[in-house]
């Protein structure tokens, strides 16, 4: 049973056909009416402006997109060795030295390679 309260919401097939055909013809006329004259070719002018602008740079865009992660990464890189290897100064000792023990080299390598690898992977997959 049809809902008599919604006569205006339901459009007959005839009206839908009229809308469809009217839309198609409006589109044709519109594109013809608003067409740009072929003589208006500004390719050379636009390319001149393009040539003067900064070229697209994947690395720069990547840095801009992931700057916050890079910042956190650098922070961690700095803080981890400090926490792990910085000798706590003995209050009774007059002097101390900061030296990265040879044993830490594999750890440094793992951290560096992981961060670089993640960066390259993100850059290539985006």
């Amino acid at each position, binding site marked *: 049973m049809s809902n008599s309260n919604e006569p*205006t919401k339901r*459009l007959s097939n005839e*009206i839908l056909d*009229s*809308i469809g*055909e*009217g*839309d198609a*013809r*409006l*589109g044709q*006329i*519109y*594109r*013809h*009416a*608003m*067409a*740009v004259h*072929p003589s*208006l*070719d*500004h*390719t050379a*002018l*636009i*390319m001149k*402006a*393009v*040539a003067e*602008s*900064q*070229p*697209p*740079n*994947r690395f*720069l*865009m*990547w840095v801009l*997109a992931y700057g916050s992660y890079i910042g956190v990464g650098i922070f961690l890189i700095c803080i981890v060795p400090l926490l792990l290897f910085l000798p706590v100064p003995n209050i009774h000792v007059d002097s101390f030295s900061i030296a990265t023990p040879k044993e830490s080299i594999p750890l440094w390598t793992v951290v560096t390679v992981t961060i670089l690898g993640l960066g390259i992977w993100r850059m290539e997959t*985006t």
Partner: protein
Amino acid sequence: MTDAEIINRVLSGNKQAFSLLVAAYQTKALTLARSIVHDEHLAEDLVQDSFVKAFTSLASFKGGSAFSTWFYRIVYTTGLNALQKSRRTPISVELIEDDTPHWIEPYIFDQIDDHILNEIIREEMTNMSPTYSAVMDLFYGQECSYDQIVAITGMPLGTIKTRLNRGRALLRNAIVRRCPELEIPHV
């Protein structure tokens, strides 16, 4: 050559390949820009700015949508910004609630000479608020789908349909006003 191949060439350092995109999209971009700013010279500047923006940020184009959709969004936002700067006031968005569907019936096209129709459409589009004319151009001029228009303008689908409906009503009214001899059948 596809847009994606051209973009890869540009990103590989071949700046000149970008001219292929310029040649392919400049006329469509110009009609869209004209529909927003209603000024030929401003529209040309706007298209140039849009291409420069597209070029410098080409690396951020991820290919999730068609290049045309991505580029038209740049033209659209650049156009709105230019319009707001020139007017120094926000563009008013008048919301006219109207559920009645409006369209231009095929018999109207049968009765009017194409030259007159072209003239009426050109005039009416120039006078129409950018609120409606930009969406009209994307739909009828660029032949974008509703989804593409949503992606380009960032407007909800319902708003786009309302603006298209209103734009069609404005065009139809203009045609009927300019052609009083039109025979409109009574339904």
